[in-house]
């Protein structure tokens, strides 16, 4: 049976992907809000839009890295992973699964955010 020492896993990793979402969200919101506050309420979003695009690509890349880490953990054993049993491998796989699924959710949420900048072109 594959043994994974406890110190190889940390609950903090669980916050990684949603943390990326949060950073993307705050950066996008702050950029748009400051841009519109300083440029006037009818100004085009131009640069701010570009910045949100960059944040989105960076965010998706970061979430992708977390997902890869999750996938590696999830696939640590041969055969179908079981996350409901009392083994250290199952714990590793469970946390891997959590990382992976949260990365998926965060990626979708990041894309949702980006869509706002796709469809809205001005500060109005």
């Amino acid at each position: 049976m594959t043994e994974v020492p406890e110190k190889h896993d940390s609950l903090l990793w669980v916050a990684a992907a949603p943390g990326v979402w949060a950073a993307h969200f705050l950066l996008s919101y702050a950029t748009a809000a400051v841009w519109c506050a300083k440029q006037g309420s009818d100004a085009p979003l131009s640069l701010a839009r570009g910045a949100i695009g960059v944040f989105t690509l960076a965010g998706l890349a970061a979430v992708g890295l977390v997902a890869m880490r999750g996938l590696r953990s999830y696939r640590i054993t041969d055969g179908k992973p079981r996350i409901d049993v009392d083994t250290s491998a199952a714990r590793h796989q469970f946390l891997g699964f959590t990382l992976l699924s949260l990365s998926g959710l965060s990626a979708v949420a990041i894309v949702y955010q980006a869509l706002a900048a796709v469809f809205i072109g001005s500060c109005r």
Partner: protein
Amino acid sequence: MSQTEDAPPTSRPGASDLAPVLEPGLVDRRAERLPRADFDVGPLSDAPPEALQREQAARLVEVWETPKGFRYWSSVNNSDVGVWYVTSCFIFFLFAGVLALLMRTQLAKPNSTFLSADTYNQVFTVHGSVMMFLFAIPIFEAIAVVILPQILGARDLPFPRLSAFGFWCFIMGGLFLCGSIFFGAAPSGGWFMYPPLTSSYTPGIGPDIWLLGFSFIEVAAIAAAVELIVGVLKCRPPGMRVQLMPLYAWYVLVAAAMILFAFPPLIAGSLLLELERAFAWPFFDPARGGDPLLWQHLFWLFGHPEVYIIFLPSIALVAMIVPTFSRRPIVGYGWVVLAAIGTGFLSFGLWVHHMYTTGLPGISLGLFSAASMAVSIPTGVQFTCFTATMLAGKVTRSLPMLWIFGAFAIFVLGGLTGVMVALAPLDFQVHDTFFVVAHFHYALIGGSIFPVMAGVYYFFPMVNGKLLSERIGKIAFWLSFVGFNITFMPMHLTGMRGMPRRVFTYPEGLGLETLNLVSSIGSAILGVGLALVFVDLVRPRKKQPLAPRDPWKAGTLEWVQEMPGKDWGIRSIPEIDSRYPLWDQPNLIRDIDEGRFYLPDAEEMRRETIITSVVDGTPQQCQRLPGSSFLPLVAALTTGGFFIFGTFHWWALAIGSLGVALGVILYWLWTGTAHLPEKPHKHVGLGLSLPLYVSGPGSIGYWAMCITMLADLTAFISMVFGYFYFWTIHDDFPPPGTIGPGVLWPVAGLALVAGAWGLTLLARRQNRHGSAQSFYLSLGGGVLLALLGAAALLIGPWQTGLDPASHSYPATVWLLMSWSALHLVIGVIMQLYCVARRFAGKMTPRHDIDIGNVALYWHFTALTVAITVLVGAGFPLVSEVMP
């Protein structure tokens, strides 16, 4: 000495005599016996002799006994405090429910004079505030205090006196707020207290009662959050790895973590609003550079996550109940964990959807609308898992399930209207109408009250030992369900026909009469339904037989308890091998009862529980827990005095009360924490020996300090957000011609604080190396530098003559500087406390919990001061050169 020490270590049960015994009706999972890790520990193969068992039980009973008579109120055991907590929440719930009925009576017919406009305003404000702050949030903490230790097989939560303190704060703040309405002095600006209505337009003490009363309760809520987080992470039974944690624990962990980041913005906001009301610091007054919208940001930064702080723990009850009555493990455990965590995060990206009509740029609305859509994904995932569990299992009819079905039906409707109002264009139309009232009552009653009722029916036998009435329960459910829908369904239409919320009456002829009358009739039916539940809860049941043990045939650990439960919580703390140990671990109840697991005894007559590691639940420490004490009550009374006297602006009394509170809390810490144990290790049974004293990152106190300071830092960041918010909305901030706090004094302050911080860390090191003299010297130097640093921070704005009442800029600068200075003063008290502890021999080179925690506090304080100086002194320089 315990007999268990002589028992063979780590013996495994023999296969023949411990064949799994399954109750009828359970799905037989013996065929797929779970593989276990080889190093897992089983119970003792032979029961300890009966005489010994009796002695052990007698000792445990004595140690955990609830005090009698007047001293009953000094109890800190979770089984007592939790029950007081739940009971008080329900009393507040009833009170706010009566207020709701008053409102519906007023609105039953047009032009009614049943309530005056002002009374109506007070009634809806208190209704909303009480339901949110005195029922929905605390009921989560209250239920968790009762059931979490049982679910985790812990004797109690890690900080029992903190729970008691939180409860007493809660009850005081709650009575204060509720009482105010009887004197016509209650707040009347709505439960979200928007300025300027609640600042310059409301004289009197109503808003002060709200701001100070609730700040007090929020402090209690954060205390509870600390308790619950450390409880879930560190007080699990041995072997309960993260993937075996009951879903309830996951939800509690997420919701409590959300409290840490959601409540501080409101505490910060309340502080700003109270400063404006009491001392005319103009944070929200546009005439002097403030902005009312800042309040809305801070409030909803709390307010929206708060909805999920209410929702998640209620859904957690569903996640415990559904598998029990489906007779199978939850389907998609990992997905439910995903949903809980995902919701926890995403819910912080929704706050502006309460502010769609405030004229923010479309792109901002778009971003928040997108997050509002995204959060429905994890919500849907959870409901899919629950439904799948029911479909895959064999659902048995029961009262808790009935309430859960009702909850699903109602919540799904609330969720759907939620997606509707998350769309900005629709929200523009229905904002502040009864459509929104209908939406959030569907969401909250379906997402919180019905699941809580299910939880009450489900867990009542665990608390009382007896079942609630099936017959009354059914009638109550149907009255509530039907009454609820009759009340709130028509409100969608009332709202779309244009009836605004929070207006005390309406004229005839607008097509609102019938809809309102129907709503009012429905509310009476709903009221009768819920009242029946309370009748059932309080009716005498002396003659009723006790419920059987594990009455619902559940699989989770809380149901191992006897009927009625004992004060000790659990007879011996088991090793866990499964998510549903009662289903999967053979003879678990017998082994626990006979004391075949850990801590079956209290040889030293001390309350104890086991502290385990975060990820795998490996035993790390035997933690001594404090016993009954009036200190939490006295500390709450004196802390409450500060807030209550403050409401009336009796500052001398308020400060005096705070001083006494400080003394009480110090005495509590001195006498009740970080005891030097009589021996370094203790045998806890099954051949395991654990340390009795752990300091640094392994200790629960360190965790609690870290978590508390995260909340504290969040409050501070909210204030910094205020600074930059003002910069965003003003063309020039700091305003042209204003001199800031200067550079010299703030930077000098920072240097001094850095020195104080460094000396504190040095002192920790010196203590460890046993050099007492240099320890005292370093800490003494630290105290001096910290005080000088605090003075320097305040001298800056004082010397440049910043008047906080003149404009939002000086007010914000003073706020940041004072906040930092206050933290330095608290840091000094902590340093002096460590000096005293060492001097009194209560802290030694090896036993250094106190200085470890104080050093941690100083990390956060140094960071706070650094940000203060960077923003206060540095930003004006930057903004000068900006285009």
